[in-house]
């Protein structure tokens, strides 16, 4: 077989590494033996009370989840010092949100981030929350710190819409990054106006979307109350964890392995082609806080 082409058969042979598995989602165990590798920390925080009976978000609970996540991520005893680790008072902060109408970044989450930036001493005029207008936004143009926050969803072109994909609005022609199911989204993270500025990536997993139908690929039937958030400094690792949860949910829901179509291989490529993070589960230190029922990972 042509060695330069990765085919479906390569996965069947079981010769694929975990990174390759991410291409189509085949579950593959990877052992690194006794080798010690530096791991990327990712924190999942869940709380069964964050959503009310009607799906309304409890802002206080969500804020506590965010604080717990930040403290754990940066090894701090209290949330305030964690946020002070994230922000400096003279920072200019752009919060890259996501306004997809069916599953937007929760406004409660946006408010919580703004409040924490203010408490860290940042001037109100130096904070902006935006999605589609980031390229024209004056704050984003001179931002020294970016916070990347969005809801996780199945995406009918990229496999999943997570932290990596959320930065596609930073380029003038997003469609230029659509080739091969958005395989090279990782390159966006190396652009001069982006690189090194992201202090925190947050995947809102309160009600993730694990499958889609229809013109907008959204159906409430495929949303479930996971009641969690995932935080990390590495967008690739955060997305890789989110992807595993979505795949586990699909397995649970459909009763059989049903790979994402298209594959979310942009996550693997962000590591292997573009070196912007870690997708390999064995190189991720996953911390799970709070409610554990149905954690799926």
């Amino acid at each position, binding site marked *: *077989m*042509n060695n*330069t*082409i*990765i*085919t*479906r*058969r390569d996965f*069947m*042979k079981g010769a694929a590494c975990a990174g390759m598995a991410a*291409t*189509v989602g085949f579950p593959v165990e990877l052992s690194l033996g006794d080798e010690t590798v530096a791991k990327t920390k990712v924190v999942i925080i869940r709380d069964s009370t964050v959503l009310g009976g009607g799906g309304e978000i409890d802002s206080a609970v969500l804020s506590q989840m965010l604080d717990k996540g930040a403290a754990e991520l940066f090894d701090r005893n209290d949330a305030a010092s964690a946020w002070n680790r994230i922000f400096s008072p003279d920072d200019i902060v752009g919060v890259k949100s996501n306004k*997809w109408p069916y599953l937007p970044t929760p406004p409660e989450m946006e408010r919580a981030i703004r409040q924490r930036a203010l408490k860290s001493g940042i001037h109100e005029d130096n904070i902006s929350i935006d999605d589609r207008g980031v390229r024209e936004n004056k704050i984003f143009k001179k931002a020294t710190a970016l916070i990347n926050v969005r809801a996780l969803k199945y*995406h*009918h*072109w*990229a496999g999943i*819409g997570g932290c990596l*994909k959320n930065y*596609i609005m930073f380029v003038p022609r*997003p*469609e230029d990054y*659509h080739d*091969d*199911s*958005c395989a090279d989204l990782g390159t966006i993270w190396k652009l001069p106006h982006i690189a090194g500025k992201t202090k925190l990536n947050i995947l809102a997993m309160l009600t993730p979307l694990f499958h*889609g*139908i*229809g*013109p*907008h*690929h959204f*159906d*409430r*039937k495929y949303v479930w109350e996971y009641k969690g958030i995932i935080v990390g400094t590495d967008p690739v690792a955060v997305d890789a964890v989110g992807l595993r949860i979505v795949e586990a949910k699909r397995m649970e829901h459909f009763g059989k392995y049903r*790979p994402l*179509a*298209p*594959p979310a*291989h942009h996550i693997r490529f962000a590591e292997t082609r573009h070196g912007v993070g870690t997708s390999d589960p064995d190189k991720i230190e996953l911390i799970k806080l709070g409610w554990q029922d149905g954690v799926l990972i």
Partner: protein
Amino acid sequence: MMNAGHVLKKLLFLCSAVFILTWAISGCGRGRMDSDDMNEYLPDEIDGLKISGEPRTYDRDGIFRYIDGAGEVYRQYDYRRVLVKQYVGRENMAITAELFDMGTPSDAYGIFSHSRETPDIGFGQGSEFKSGLLCFWKNRYFVCLYSEEQSERTESAIRELASQIDSLTPAGGRVPQIVALLPAEGLDEFRVRFFHKYTSLSLHYYLADENILDLDETTNVVFAQYRPDAARILLIEYDDPGLADIAIGKFKTAYIPDADSSGMMLIENGKWVLARNIDRYAIVVLDSPDEQVAAALSDLIAANIRETAKEREASGE
């Protein structure tokens, strides 16, 4: 004083300018007429429902403002534009209607086939209703109607609106000819996908990370599943027999290098793969439970191709 020649020149210039201006105002001809036609296909009001807000249109480049990056699914076809109207009814009932101009009837069928899962419900030239979403295709148009509220009253209103749109939209076109080449026996009619490009194939079935079948906008592809063992057929129509031959050679090299002389090979999952080309078609059978099923499906398609060619020849096409 101006002479007669000069006056004539000025008149000609004036007439040309008026003509160009009129043409421009009318939307450069056919494009604007299409938009106007589309507006008529989505009525502003039916019994119990009327539009709310201004209709919106998103063209090929603008679709991402409406459907996010997944708008690429439409752009893999000859998608031209979508007209969107929001309807409101009694007790806050809200329905969204989308009319996609897919450029050709084949591509309207294609986008309809992309995610089809359920039996026809009698609208247009093919339709389905699932989870509060009603879709049908007719002529070169693909219509989607849905409501966030999933209830009997919204389903009833959606069906009524679909009926009106169906009656206003002109008939025309047909299912792509290549679909008729699929053997009917055992065919899962809800798993027949029509498209052109390799990216679309990857949405349905990951084969390889490179385009090992040379699919592009010039190829017509049908991907179908068969009962009871989920064998799959990938049938591709190229512009000429030479391209089909090259593509099958490329596929064999990349995917089944140890295939026998008939193009058959048993692979790691215990299933059989068969690849061959006939005339300008490439036939690939995937996930076949045994050699006999693969050969039978392939032979039936080959026979259908020959039969169709004969019919074309007889009719002088």
